[in-house]
């Protein structure tokens, strides 16, 4: 809070650096749409932004219950933000279940805008409040600033002459909330108005009704005395001028696969089976036919990957996307891709497991499966994305490695990155790394026979695709003779081929960037080593620790197999290494196993991302221990 200024209406406008807002309501209340619209508006405004939707795994859990609460959280700021906020400053609670489910994550002193109709006797009972208790009246929210607003009633009044059915009118209540929040944060309505007109092109009256509800919310803020003391807020823009787009992690994966195919001059084929939270990758690519993308919704996860192997054999950039249970089903085929030595990208959007587990919640518990989840000796590269925008770069890199090193590559995302979004300054094609497929040229009949498993200095074989004259050859899942690729059960040959396949993967370390330190000194007391979606929370926590003068640094792994060549050296530059993970401690095993060091593990297996405070507390505690 830096300075205040007055509007003509004598309402204070306070400048703030960052605000985290949660829109929460019943899954039928339209909170995802409200949050998305709000995010679009702040993005266009030029503030930094990070969003995260949180919804139940059932399409329609019983209305009014805790299980049916759907939320959309976002943080917007005039400085870079890496998370949707550990806790929120403002919570919109459309009903009592939404309040109850989320109150623990609201800052003390935070603002609650409560839709009073959602706090009637029936809703309070459904949310599990004891009979007679109403948090809006019983003093239990005294530590917060509560604004009870009859959202439904005000929406109905605003739309009473709209000609809409009462059901349609009630559905506009989320627009009232949106308008009120726009007023509170001095944001313009025009962007959403344009979106609504575009969305309801054929039903202009629907657009107009939604806009009327939104304006009613905006003017309610302006006219009521309710917010007189609180005033309004302004978060100034931060982004440099340029062209931006807002992407979720899943969208970024889909764009990256298409971009990699264009850059490599290949056709893109995605063989896939719908699974939460990875499905949007298939959905996004199904809409990219104008780029020549071929998507195939297979009958199951196995057919998803096997069809991709077929397409890769035919010379396409082939990919499959899935989540934990699907990756489990794909493991046999992954072994085939390893022994065939063909390029394939597998995007695994991790969710809570085992089994069906927590389908809509993020977890990082498939690392072991990605690393080791195949029978036989079947190493393959594993890389991880660390932010929604980074899903683009990680997936693109997975495609590059797959094509240039003739191997399946697993790219790890998770349910948090998949659905979170942030602004992305539009990338230009020339900034993307070149991708060069190594197609074997046709062979004259007089030339020596083609050897499908002859390797180059990186132990990479060439890609001989059907249709190329003179290269007719047979390959398969049976062990092959070195170079000729003919079936071989020779004991020494099997050992040789096993070593060659492993060496090929190890040699990828020669061509990937060295590990860098994201933040902090190159030597010091503590290194926080992360991977994947914990980036934002670690980044924020380490920033704060450094501000406090602590000797701590942050390194974040893109490449988990093989590791960057200098990782050992980096780990040796700190007295202690701490590894936060959303699992029961998997990377810590791999680091211990590879480097024979004893890192400290910080784990969280609750289906929710780390809160930066949890990491900061651990940093502080560890450094205290180190000093004593």
């Amino acid at each position, binding site marked *: 809070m830096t300075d205040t200024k007055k509007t003509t209406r004598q309402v204070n406008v306070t400048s703030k650096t960052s605000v985290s807002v949660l829109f929460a309501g019943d899954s039928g209340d339209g909170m995802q749409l409200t949050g998305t619209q709000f995010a679009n508006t702040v993005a266009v405004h030029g503030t930094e932004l990070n969003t995260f939707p949180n919804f139940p795994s059932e399409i329609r859990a019983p209305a009014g219950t805790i299980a049916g609460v759907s939320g959309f959280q976002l943080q917007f700021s005039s400085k870079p933000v890496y998370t949707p906020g550990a806790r929120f400053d403002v919570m919109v609670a459309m009903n009592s279940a939404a309040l109850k489910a989320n109150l623990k994550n609201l800052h003390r002193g935070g603002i609650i805008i409560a839709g009073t109709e959602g706090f009637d006797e029936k809703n309070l009972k459904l949310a599990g409040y004891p009979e007679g208790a109403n948090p809006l009246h019983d003093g239990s929210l005294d530590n917060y600033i509560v604004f009870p607003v009859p959202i439904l009633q005000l929406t109905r009044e605003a739309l009473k002459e709209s000609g809409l059915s009462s059901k349609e009118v009630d559905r506009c209540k989320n627009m009232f909330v949106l308008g009120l929040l726009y007023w509170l944060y001095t944001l313009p309505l025009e962007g959403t108005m344009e979106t609504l007109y575009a969305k309801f092109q054929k039903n202009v009256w629907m657009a107009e009704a939604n806009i009327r509800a939104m304006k009613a919310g905006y003017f309610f803020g302006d006219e009521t005395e309710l917010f007189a003391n609180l005033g309004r807020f302004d978060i100034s823009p931060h982004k440099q001028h340029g062209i931006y787009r807002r992407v979720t992690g899943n969208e970024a994966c889909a764009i990256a696969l298409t971009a990699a195919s264009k850059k490599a001059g290949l056709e893109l084929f995605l063989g896939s089976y719908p699974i939460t939270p990875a499905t949007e990758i298939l959905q996004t690519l199904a809409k990219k036919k104008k780029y020549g993308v*071929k998507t195939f919704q297979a009958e199951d996860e196995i057919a998803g990957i096997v069809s991709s192997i077929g397409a890769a054999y035919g010379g396409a950039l082939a990919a499959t996307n899935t989540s934990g249970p699907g990756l489990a089903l794909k493991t046999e085929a992954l072994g085939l891709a390893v022994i065939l030595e063909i390029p394939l990208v597998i995007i695994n959007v991790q969710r809570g497991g085992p089994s069906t587990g927590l389908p809509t919640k993020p977890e990082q518990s498939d690392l072991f499966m990605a690393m080791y989840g195949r029978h036989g000796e079947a190493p393959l590269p594993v890389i991880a994305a660390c932010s929604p925008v980074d899903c683009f770069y990680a997936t693109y890199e997975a495609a590059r490695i797959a094509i240039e090193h003739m191997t399946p590559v697993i790219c790890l995302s998770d349910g948090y990155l998949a659905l979170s979004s942030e602004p992305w300054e539009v990338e230009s094609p020339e900034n993307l790394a070149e991708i060069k497929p190594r197609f074997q040229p046709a062979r004259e009949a007089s030339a020596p026979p083609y050897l499908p498993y002859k390797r180059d200095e990186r132990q990479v074989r060439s890609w001989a695709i059907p249709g190329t004259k003179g290269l007719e050859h047979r390959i398969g899942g049976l062990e092959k003779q070195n170079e000729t690729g003919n079936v071989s059960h020779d004991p020494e040959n099997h050992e040789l081929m096993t070593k060659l396949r492993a060496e090929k993967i190890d040699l990828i370390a020669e061509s990937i960037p060295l590990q860098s330190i994201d933040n902090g000194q190159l030597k010091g007391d503590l290194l926080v080593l992360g991977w994947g979606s914990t980036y934002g929370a670690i980044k924020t926590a380490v920033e704060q620790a450094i501000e406090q003068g602590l000797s701590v640094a942050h390194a974040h792994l893109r490449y988990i197999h093989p590791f960057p060549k200098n990782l050992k050296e980096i780990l040796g530059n700190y007295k202690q290494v701490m590894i936060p993970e959303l699992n029961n401690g998997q990377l810590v095993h791999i680091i211990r196993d590879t480097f024979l060091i004893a890192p400290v593990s910080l784990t969280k297996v609750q289906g929710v991302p780390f809160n930066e405070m949890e990491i900061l507390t651990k940093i502080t505690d560890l450094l205290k221990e180190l000093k004593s």
Partner: protein
Amino acid sequence: MTDNDTTIKVLPVLTAKDFASDQEAKWCPGCGDHSVLQQLKQLLPELGIAPENIVVVSGIGCSSRLPYYLATYGVHGIHGRALPMATGLKIARPDLSVWVGTGDGDALSIGGNHFIHTLRRNPDLNILLFNNEIYGLTKGQYSPTSKIGLRTVTSPSGVIDHPFNTAALTIGSGGTFFARAFDRDGKFLRSIMMRAALHRGTSLVEIYQNCPIFNNAAFEAYATPDKKADNTIYVEHEKPLVFGKGKNRGIMLDGFTPIVVDLDKEEFSTSDLWIHNERDINKASILARFADDDSLPRPFGVFYAEERVTYEDALAAQIKEAQKNGCWTLEELLKGENSYEIK
């Protein structure tokens, strides 16, 4: 055969020898698989497709060794998954002639799900299903086509699983082509494989194939000269269903029920008989059920052939439509449709 111009160029005359790989076939002596391989090697030069434009895909099992013995491109995949592999390849490369070698275990047991879905999608694949009613490679366990009562190492008291009827399963799955052939009748087998090759869509050829080691003589009733005439019927499009040693027996339809009639008796002539029509799915469905009725001869030939758009063609048409105003560039992809400018 394919849309690719390169396959229509004048090719050097190839023979069966040109399609033989340098690998020796490792099937047991007397195995019916040798016969199928032999006929395929004879057939491939007749197709006029260059060897580099042919891919043979397989799963796991004795039959799935097929690709190793042909001098085309070939992939030997994993158990049950030949069909999705072939489908992905065909979608990515519609210009190729894609063949699948599979067996009753590979296609109908572990790969059963892929089998039904591939058939309904109708990619242009030629599937050779070697049906020996037994698991050969794993040494003699019963398969999903083994007859009730068959005693094997895993059914010492006799099989109690009701077997699949491959023809009915194919037609029921929305398949566009079903034919049955026999390893012992090489010339006929080759003619059926040619029909499969010419059919645009998924062609399913069920080949009764004898396993001399674990299920010998499973198809003896259709093989030995004395039994063959009365136990088999070779169906031909627009021809009456006639069989028997002296072509003196026929099939007539009584409502939906097929009955065997004796043409030597005066009340029936060939004009009373069922005239085979490959395009009639209802008749094909009745024909498919002959295998469940021992009083009826076992049909061989093309049961059903329907012209329907292939999966890869339908997808290509959608892509063409999406690109009718030109292909989109990488720059447009990266910019997206909802980008905004911050000034």
